[in-house]
């Protein structure tokens, strides 16, 4: 059992874990009832899955070729920073364009407040 075999095992485990995570979360795309719950699956598990795969790739190139790839680190940082922002933007635009919550939802404290906010915005834009 030499070093490269151990590294191969570690990389394989990490890549497979990431793959299973992203597969399961895309399964959530089919099963979950509305867009808001789907965004939970899209932002959290997909991010973690891609993180695992990229870290596995990083470890592979580091120990097999002695190459510390700055591009890969930048990619990891970028995915980390942008995935939650994208998820937030999607559900925000969905709510503002009037996509309904699923029937099983129990609580919605935003609806009345959003009306007030929109009225305020219109009032300010007329004035200015």
């Amino acid at each position, binding site marked *: 059992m030499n070093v490269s075999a151990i590294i191969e095992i570690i990389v394989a485990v990490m890549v497979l874990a990431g793959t299973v995570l992203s597969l399961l979360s895309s399964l959530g*795309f089919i099963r979950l009832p509305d867009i808001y719950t789907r965004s939970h699956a899209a932002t959290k598990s997909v991010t973690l899955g891609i993180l695992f795969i990229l870290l596995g790739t990083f470890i592979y190139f580091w120990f097999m070729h002695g190459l510390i790839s700055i591009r890969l680190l930048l990619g990891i940082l970028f995915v980390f920073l942008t995935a939650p922002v994208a998820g937030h933007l999607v559900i925000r635009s969905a709510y503002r364009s009037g996509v309904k919550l699923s029937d099983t939802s129990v609580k919605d404290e935003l609806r009345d407040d959003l009306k007030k906010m929109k009225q305020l915005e219109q009032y300010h834009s007329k004035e200015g």
Partner: protein
Amino acid sequence: MFNYLMLLSMFLLSVSIVISLYRVIRGPSMPDRVLALDSLGYSVIGIVAVLCIMMDSHAYLETILLIGILAFLSTIALCKFIERGVVIERERDH
């Protein structure tokens, strides 16, 4: 053995791309499609990374960063289009 495992993970990522495509085509509302396209981009990033390991070359690592940036920018542009109806706002309009 290692190569077969990588091939297996590539196959599973392709399956998750197909599932996302189902949501892109079928999705009842527009934001659904945007969300599915976003996660499809992340699956493509994963496939490129696994391809790099399989071919044992670091030539494709730029592609990861590029696809990530493109997916994020397209998501933002589409969201703004859904919310406001325009992508680039001019100051003169209001």
